[in-house]
């Protein structure tokens, strides 16, 4: 499939949003046997550039660098309508929206300051300081998932880096408003 995409003059860019660097996303990229490039955003490039506070996201950008489609939050290439849209764009340059194709654009990210200040503190080794700032940010914007998960990752590393990500635990945290 990737050969067809590049033959059509198109490409795929995968961005792993991970504060902790390339070692965590690497196995996912390798397991998928991905031929396209994966880059790592350990900061706020994705949040700033696209105006997103949750993932997974998809964006289609044309030959001139113009944004043609976005789905920010809940993007899933396995969904038939999404898959058809993405392949149609990459192979034929067509953006064909149907009733089943969601479109979601950027929203204001009110807690971007908190996210960035926390990242600076985290980068300088002040983990507790980062956690304090991020907790304040969460009060401001509870659905800033990129920040929420970074906070969880430092407060509960055993749920993230102990061989597998504990999604059941995450669901409980959300249900209980943590």
């Amino acid at each position, binding site marked *: 499939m990737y050969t067809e995409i590049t033959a059509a003059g198109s490409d795929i860019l995968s961005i792993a949003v991970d504060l902790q660097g390339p070692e965590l996303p690497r196995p996912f990229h390798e397991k998928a046997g991905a031929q396209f490039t994966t880059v790592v955003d350990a900061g706020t490039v994705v949040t700033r550039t696209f*105006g997103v506070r949750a993932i*997974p996201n998809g964006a289609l950008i044309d030959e001139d660098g113009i944004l043609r489609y976005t789905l920010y939050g809940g993007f899933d290439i396995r969904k038939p309508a999404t898959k058809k849209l993405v392949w149609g764009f990459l192979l034929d340059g067509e953006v064909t929206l149907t009733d089943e194709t969601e479109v979601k654009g950027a929203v204001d990210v009110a807690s971007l300051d908190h996210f960035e200040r926390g990242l600076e503190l985290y980068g300088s080794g002040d983990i507790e300081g980062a956690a304090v700032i991020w907790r304040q940010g969460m009060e401001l914007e509870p659905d800033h998932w990129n920040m929420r998960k970074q906070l969880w990752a430092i407060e509960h590393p055993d749920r993230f880096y102990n061989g597998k990500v504990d999604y059941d635990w995450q669901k409980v945290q959300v249900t209980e408003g943590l």
Partner: protein
Amino acid sequence: MTSIGSSAPAIGDIVPDFTLSSLDGVDVKLSDYQGKRVAVFMWASW
């Protein structure tokens, strides 16, 4: 309170360029893809 809503591109806008490092440590720019259609997927391991 900071808002970036006005600077984030809407459909039909040019996406601002950015640079990120690949898994192999190579700098990759969005503008490297100029002249191609590109699907950008954003995800996380967590």
